[in-house]
């Protein structure tokens, strides 16, 4: 199989804490791509934004026998050089301000996501 090092993957996450089983996989795929030496960004918008509110992701634990929760996954992703970005407009949906966000997440506007979607090699939408 061909190596895809250096490719750029944009992951768009629209699911949040109200659907826990839809939160882990996009981060897992992002970490897999990063491990394969791809440049990866996860863009959180719509409901996806609410998992970035401080204190929320810690509450989402799919496997009760594990000490891994959604916050662990977000931290692991950032440690793997996955870039986390959030849609500025979506913050208002959840009465969030920039001060509510967990550390390491940057805010971008809607026009940026269009530019990024056109620039990246592949977009994965969840």
């Amino acid at each position, binding site marked *: *199989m061909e*190596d895809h090092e250096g490719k750029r993957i944009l992951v768009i996450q629209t699911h949040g804490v109200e659907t826990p089983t839809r939160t882990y996989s996009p981060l*897992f795929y992002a*970490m*897999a791509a990063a*491990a*394969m*030496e791809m440049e990866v960004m996860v863009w959180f918008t719509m409901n996806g934004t609410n998992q970035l509110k401080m204190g929320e992701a810690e509450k989402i634990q799919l*496997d009760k026998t*594990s000490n*891994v929760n959604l916050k662990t996954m977000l931290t692991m992703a950032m440690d*793997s050089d996955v870039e986390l970005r959030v849609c500025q407009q979506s913050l208002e949906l959840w009465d969030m301000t920039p001060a509510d966000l967990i550390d390491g997440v940057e805010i971008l506007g809607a026009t940026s996501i269009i530019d990024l979607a056109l620039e990246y090699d592949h977009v994965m939408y969840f």
Partner: protein
Amino acid sequence: MSHEKVNECVILKDLHYSVEDNTWVKVNDDGTVTVGMTDVAQSLAGPILHAKTKSVGTDRKKGRPIATVESGKWVGPVKSPVSGEIIEINAGLAGDAQLINRSPYGAGWVVKMKPENLEAEIGEMTTGDEAVARYKEKIERDKIQACTHIAGSDTY
């Protein structure tokens, strides 16, 4: 092979370790090296589902991935502890990635490489009693739980 256990994690004293990246190197008689994941690494990953190695002929600088490994709870790179060319991959991993879990220092080796700067880079790794001491430090510092071994394991 002489070994020691640290928190149930097996450390073979004859191998050279990149402790922070949890990889080992064995220098072969022909000057090539065999590279694999440590017992600590396989335990942290849990039962491995897939291991995707880079292709034979790939040149790697130290620190770049030679493989991507995924389990049900973790996915990440196996970082090359030396610079050089991958000359052989462990074909057995494609059909049975848990070879890494069962035999991290034997049948679960990951790649063989022709190193390009071995003398300098091996000096940056640890071996023997120093490796055991470094792992004791790491396991304590990172609060790593006791290593677990799946059925059929043969770590040394």
